[in-house]
């Protein structure tokens, strides 16, 4: 059973970095992407850093050639400490998707954001 918790006002979430909130004692990063809002647990599965306080950025696409295709701008958060890259929508670590930080559903009601836990 998930319950819905108020997280913050939608306009408090900046474009290029997470808004860090505490919801039911959990540190959570709320992100604004083109397709809407996303929320990840602000604890890195690597060594527990404040993952969501890292930069929101893109990354290079895996290719078979020596080329640098910069991709997915704004869809990746790099952990604040060692820089592991996580997909903001799924919480998955790009090198090994089996490693992930928890993601939460988020809903918008008027100007308010709610996280579903």
């Amino acid at each position, binding site marked *: 059973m998930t319950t819905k918790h108020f997280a913050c006002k939608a306009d408090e979430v900046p474009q290029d970095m997470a808004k860090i909130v505490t919801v039911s004692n959990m540190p959570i990063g709320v992100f604004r992407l083109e397709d809407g809002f996303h929320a990840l647990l602000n604890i890195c599965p690597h*060594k*527990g*850093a*404040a993952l969501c*306080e*890292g*930069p929101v950025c893109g990354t290079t696409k895996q290719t078979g050639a020596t080329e640098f295709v910069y991709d997915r701008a704004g869809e990746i958060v*790099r952990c*604040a*400490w*060692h*820089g592991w890259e996580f997909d903001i929508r799924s919480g998955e670590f790009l090198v090994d998707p089996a490693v992930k930080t928890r993601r939460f559903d988020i809903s918008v009601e008027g100007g308010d954001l709610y996280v579903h836990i």
Partner: protein
Amino acid sequence: MFIVDCDCHNYWCSATVLEPYMEGLFKDMFIRGERTGPRGAFPHGHRPWFHPEGFARHDVNPVEEGDNYLIMKEKHLDKYNIDVAILTGDEPIEASTLANPYYANALCKAYNDYMIDYWLPKDDRFWGSIVVAPQDPHLAAAEIRRAGGHPRVVQVLVSHGASRPYGDPFYHPIYEACAEMGLPFAMHLGGQGGINSTPIGAGPSTFFWETHAILPQTAMTHMASLIANGVFEKWPSLKVVVIECGVAWVPSVLWRLDANYKALRKETPWLKRLPSEYFKDHFRFSTQPLEQPENIQHLWAALEAMDGENTLMFASDYPHWDYDDVNKLHVPPAWREKIFGLNALDVYTRLPRAAAQAAE
């Protein structure tokens, strides 16, 4: 548990904090001379690669000089109950990359005075490293004798990037001064580039992460050189601390050194013991960044083979990107007290033992 962090970087926002500590010609050079980086950068011959995202953790964002300490206190010292933080500076160890040893020495002196003046009084947990520029060992030795007497200075620090291996007799004036002042000689990863023109044995590597992974190469060379050149026969009290150079490689190099010495001891008749015995008595390694194999037993076997219980000392490398969290250090539980603090008391003899007992 009594925790000594052997590699805690005290940052500045701008190297201009050194201005009040410089005078004469070198002050002019410092204010108006060419620099490699942005305004406020510290002068040095820079390495061939850069961390693509910058060195510092992204949750450490000082705006004003005072923030450097306040953030460290909140996010590191208080959070993890660090009892002792050995300050290791940051940019100043890159003074070793300058060709002009007089300027390099002036920069080191300015840094040491600033560190003693600005950082040490800020927190009882702070103990300092004085930085020297090893390219002129006589100037470095004079600086060790000048600044090394301060009661809260606990080690002499250089970069591991060097223009020749550290056991070379060229450097011996430095060890003479360290032994005289009762200070360990520490080398920290860095200082490649400039006059230290061979960053890695075969020439410059290409990518930052690649280079960072092979950073032990240089430390291997220094370890072998210090032992082979008889530095520890000449200065039996000297301790050498190797910071941020990895550790799991140590047993393999010691095995090779011992085997070769058994066959060819006649090349170095001044040695009286096996290389691995000098190692155990004289070398200490900081843990960070501790290797992270899939199977932790593989790491522990390596640590066992280097007598890690007695030769390792905890370091966080705050606030760098490869920071090690106190609570996530994967060492055998029975060794924790020694690695986290007690081993450091034997190396940094100016640290008060009472502090350790109080923390128990």
